[in-house]
């Protein structure tokens, strides 16, 4: 049952991620990306990582994608306003894409089917266990990364703030 659900949701993830790239309209791209993130949330639930699932739901689907949509709607990009690309850029794009394909094929060739990983503690993804791990053995890296985020936030506010004289 769980395996079938996994394959179904995984197929959906792949389809939606492909649609993100192939959609002509940037707003449609973002909407497909939201659906992709939703399928990721389902994956997390299947892995019994409920906290991660819900955080993915709130942060990625609920906040970051809203901001993406927000910016795109403000810009209101249309097919007509899109600048036409020169042939040079197209050639460079083809070469870069080809390189990516070669790399992917190379890495897939050496890949082999691994046996499924079995967690020693299947309840690791629950809030309580995750919290104990984060605030126990991983306290220092956790606090440091939060400091890093805070610094980035303050920096962003500082950059967007105009000088008092100018305003």
């Amino acid at each position, binding site marked *: 049952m769980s395996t079938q659900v996994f394959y179904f949701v995984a197929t959906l993830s792949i389809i939606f991620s492909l649609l993100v790239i192939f959609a002509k309209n940037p*707003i449609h791209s973002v*909407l497909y990306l*939201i659906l992709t993130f939703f399928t990721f949330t389902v994956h997390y639930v299947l892995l019994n990582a*409920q*906290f991660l699932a*819900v*955080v993915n*739901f*709130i942060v990625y*689907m*609920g*906040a970051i994608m*809203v*901001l993406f*949509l*927000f910016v795109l*709607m*403000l810009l*209101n990009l249309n097919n007509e306003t899109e600048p036409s690309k020169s042939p040079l850029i197209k050639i460079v794009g083809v070469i870069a894409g080809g390189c990516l394909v070669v790399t992917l094929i190379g890495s897939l060739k050496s890949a082999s089917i691994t046996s499924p990983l079995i967690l020693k503690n299947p309840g690791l993804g*629950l*809030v309580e266990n995750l919290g104990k791990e984060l605030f126990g053995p991983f306290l220092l890296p956790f606090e440091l990364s939060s400091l890093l985020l805070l610094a980035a936030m303050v920096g962003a506010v500082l950059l967007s703030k105009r000088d008092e004289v100018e305003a």
Partner: protein
Amino acid sequence: MDSAFVIEKFILVAVIFGISLVIAMYSTYAERKVAAYLQDRLGPDRAGPFGILQPLADGIKMFMKEEIIPTSSNRFLFIAGPGLALLCACIGTAVIPWGSPVLIAGKTIPLQVSDINVGVLYIFGVVSLGVYGVMIGGWASNNKYSLLSAIRAASQNISYEIAMGLSIIALLLMTNTLSLKEIVGQQHGLNWNVWYQPLGFLIFMVCSFAETNRAPFDLPECETELIGGYHTEYSSMKLGFYLFAEYINMFVSSAVMAALYWGGYNYPGMDYVAAHLGPTWAPLIGTAVFFGKIVMFIFFFMWVRWTIPRFRYDQLMNLGWKGLIPLAIANIIITGVVIAIIEKF
């Protein structure tokens, strides 16, 4: 998963869905009556006694109106927008504990669709998802006013979600759980969270006004600036869906406020009632009390709407970012310090 379990949950879901819709329907009636009372008018009184059939008449009117889809709009998203808004409004009810378990025909039935252990975060996720209905509908209308309104709704929701989340964190420091069932269970009798978290409750309430796009924060449908807001281009039942979603949102956030801060189905003297009425009727009285609290909050939403004028957009942002967020952070720090002191001694 036996079939009895599925049937039980299915009935529960159907009942909750029906109640949400009926409450949303009669909220429209109540809103007009409250508005009329506050403005010294009579309000609707033609359809049925005291105008009690007015929501039905409105519903029929909505269905009968001509359906207009603008030619330059994005057809699929134009239809998906209101549907999404209503869906997001309804799924929030799944984790709210409507009452303590009831004994019916020798079987104990929990009055909660699903007790997931991240219930509070689930509510939060649903709230953050709710803005997509407005954004998609506003954008798909291909109307400058609708677009502006959609953008307003997005930035307003994002801004107030932060303060809302921070105010909940202070509550979670006290309850030590994310499960709504346990949070409500801890508030036995009159041991309600609001006595311990008055500031947190105030911030949460102001934020839920903003999240549900209710006055004084109904900037997305500010008619003096934006004609009708995000639903300018909508007619017929699609407009009805948007209006309905707003009232269901109001109902759900009232329920969440009542459950998180005002004790849910707990009331003073509930032990006495439970001892005398038995395990079938006592929980149902608790549920009735819970609905009483919800109705009080819905009335409060309306009272505020017809009392306080709409904020200006910069005032809204200033209140959110410079007022509520620092207050919420201070609330977390104070709560943390007090809990640390209590645990120490």
